[in-house]
């Protein structure tokens, strides 16, 4: 894909008069409503399937929701009910732990994989595709697979590997001490290849001569990564971290299928709690309040990451 950068566009020959004649501007750029027309299908779909449900969830978060009997206004009652329970705070804590640990783990592993698998050779293409597989496998399948891997007996797959290193077998998803870690490991396993692809794309843009120059200056591979690779990857990392943080906030399927938030609520995250509130306990108003809180948290987090990156850039 080639995109004209601003500099290149500026170099295009300007019309002799210095101003674009009106007739030509219309033919080149079209009428003002043309972009809106192109946007309209997406806008209509987003309005119906995203913005309206979001607006309704916001309204519902202030109501006692009884779809059949009719809703009634309860003010901030739902938020109060949500925030005063321990389970919401612990779910928020677990979500934060997962967001940080899983994002960091996946970026680290993805970065290592990217360094190993960068290049043009044909066999690398094959290995990269193989490494990418976890990303395209449906989460439900991943969860079932890992349930088998995490089988808590001595002869379970993960425990066999631990046994190889003379480590005691673990209960994995069945113990409150290890359930969160088990979920994070699955997340890293699934997300790392995705991060790898984005980082590889970023690595392609690194000027090779910089490596050679730094090598001539006597920089070892650690310093080359520190002073050449990482600075060049900053835009890619910004996107990665933003996406990963948002994704981790919304983590649901893996947790729901692997542990269902258990045992003893030790792996409950915001989404599983909201799901449980809404569809098991039928407290749709409180669940909507939870969704609104989650949305706000996501927006704040995204803005923080963006502004952090922008500050570093400037």
């Amino acid at each position, binding site marked *: 894909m080639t995109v004209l950068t601003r500099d290149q566009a500026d170099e295009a020959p300007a019309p002799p008069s210095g101003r674009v004649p009106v007739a030509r501007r219309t033919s080149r750029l079209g009428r*003002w*409503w043309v972009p*809106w027309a192109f946007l*309209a299908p997406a*806008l*209509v779909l987003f*309005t*119906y399937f995203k*913005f*309206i449900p979001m*607006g*309704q969830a916001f*309204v519902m978060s202030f109501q006692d929701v*009884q*779809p*059949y*009997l*009719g*809703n009634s206004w309860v003010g901030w009652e739902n938020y109060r009910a949500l925030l005063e329970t321990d389970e919401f705070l612990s779910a928020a804590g677990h979500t934060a732990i997962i967001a940080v640990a899983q994002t960091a783990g996946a970026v680290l592993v993805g970065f290592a994989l990217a360094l190993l698998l960068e290049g043009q050779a044909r066999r690398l293409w094959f290995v990269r595709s193989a490494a990418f597989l976890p990303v395209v496998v449906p989460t439900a399948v991943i969860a079932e697979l890992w*349930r088998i891997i995490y*089988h*808590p*007996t001595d002869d*379970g797959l993960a425990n066999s590997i631990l046994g190889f290193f003379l480590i005691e077998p673990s209960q994995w*998803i*069945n*113990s*409150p001490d290890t359930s969160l870690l088990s979920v994070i490991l699955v997340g890293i396993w699934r997300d790392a290849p995705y991060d790898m692809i984005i980082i590889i794309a970023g690595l392609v843009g690194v000027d090779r001569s910089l490596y050679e120059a730094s090598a001539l200056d006597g920089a070892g591979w650690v310093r080359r990564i520190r002073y050449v690779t990482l600075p060049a990857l900053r835009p890619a990392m910004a996107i990665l971290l933003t996406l990963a943080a948002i994704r981790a906030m919304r983590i649901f399927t893996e947790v729901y299928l*692997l*542990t*269902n*938030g*258990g*045992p*003893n*609520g030790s792996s409950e995250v915001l989404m599983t709690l909201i799901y*449980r509130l809404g*569809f*098991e*306990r*039928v407290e*749709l108003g409180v669940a909507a309040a939870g969704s609104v809180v989650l949305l706000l948290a996501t927006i704040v987090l995204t803005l923080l990451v963006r502004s952090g990156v922008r500050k570093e850039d400037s």
Partner: protein
Amino acid sequence: MTRRKALAGLAAVLALPVLTGCSGMTAAADVDQVPVQEQSLEIWQRKGPGSPSDLIGQELVREFTEETGIPATMTSISDNFEIKLQQRAVQRNLPDIVINDTAQLGNMQSQGFLREIDREQIEGSADINERAWDGARSYYGGYYGVPMTAHTVALMNRKDWRENLGLPVPQDWESLVDMWRGYVGDDPTGTGQEVAGIAVPGTTERGYISWNTSTFFWSGGGEYFEETPEGYRSAVADDGSVAAATWIRDLACTENVLQPGASSQDTTNAKETFQTGGAGSFLVAPYELPALVDALGDDLEALRPPPGPAGLTTLAEGNNVYLMEGSASETAQERFAEFVISPEGQEIGMAGHEDGNIVRLPVNSTVDMGGMRDAHEWETVQELYDDNGRYVPAVPNWTPFLTASANTLNALISDCSLDVRTEMEELDQVFTAELADQEVLAP
């Protein structure tokens, strides 16, 4: 067209659904009935699509249409049944009939989904046994469903394993746990394969662990509530309840007879564990009998669970035919309920020896089950239901209590360091708060 006008037009188009969406938020009203000869029914049941139970359900509806001339469709939904019902509630368009668990009555009734039933108006209602009606009565006294089927649980056991170890049929809890310990430690298969004593669906999902162990909870002296004339009092922190919960916890923590990973398994996983020889016992209702007989044949026995310190109480359950609010075909709804409880409807649902019965124990006392099924396991279940069966407490909405008790039991079996009394006292507070929420807390 100016830019401002065009944008205003676009905004109007986009705002339209917001307004129409909000108009759906008003309360339900009485629905005009269509003439009786034009009435039709949309029926939902909580069964797997394409499963044997689905096919039996389709047959039931076909026969109903043939006999009454009322067109009807049967949809089987197993995943997220309650969510899909919610979605239809939002659209103000509930199915006409829902066939669902007795324990869901309070949940649906409190949301205004159900029509109240006048027993006298339902033809054949006098033939339904009184205990089955218990499962259709709400806390407030009225009936909000017509019983369709009833059942209770029996202890499915590996007869071959028990005999290999030379053990008698357990008569009390001590010999029961001895048997399970034998399965775990004494190689009942003779192959050295590691097996568990009993498979328990220990997940909190849908409250499975509380539901599955309630038979043990009651038999061990546990009680969820104490019923007083002024309302309910939570009884989960009473000595009997703590003792019963401790016994259940010890199966995992000191006796180690539960299947590995019990705390995250649902009923399907637990059934598979038992069916494939991973565990020697499984406490389940007879709807699993045909599948288990298929898998295990003569190696399977259905035992009466041995009585615990407080005797034997087994969880009674069933399905009701719920007549849903907002239907324009109320007469047809009643005709369908009458057909389901008639001897003919009951026999179609019982499905003889086939897999997929949607009537487990007939609720119509004029139906002779022995004439339809000769497996003696069914008789065991019938006796258990008649003598020991007990429905979940008739609080306005049982679901929050089921979920809360499941959370506690799940915690107890997955973290053996927890103190049972402390946990049950915490559960007691949750129960008390919920009773107050449902406005039935005894002063």
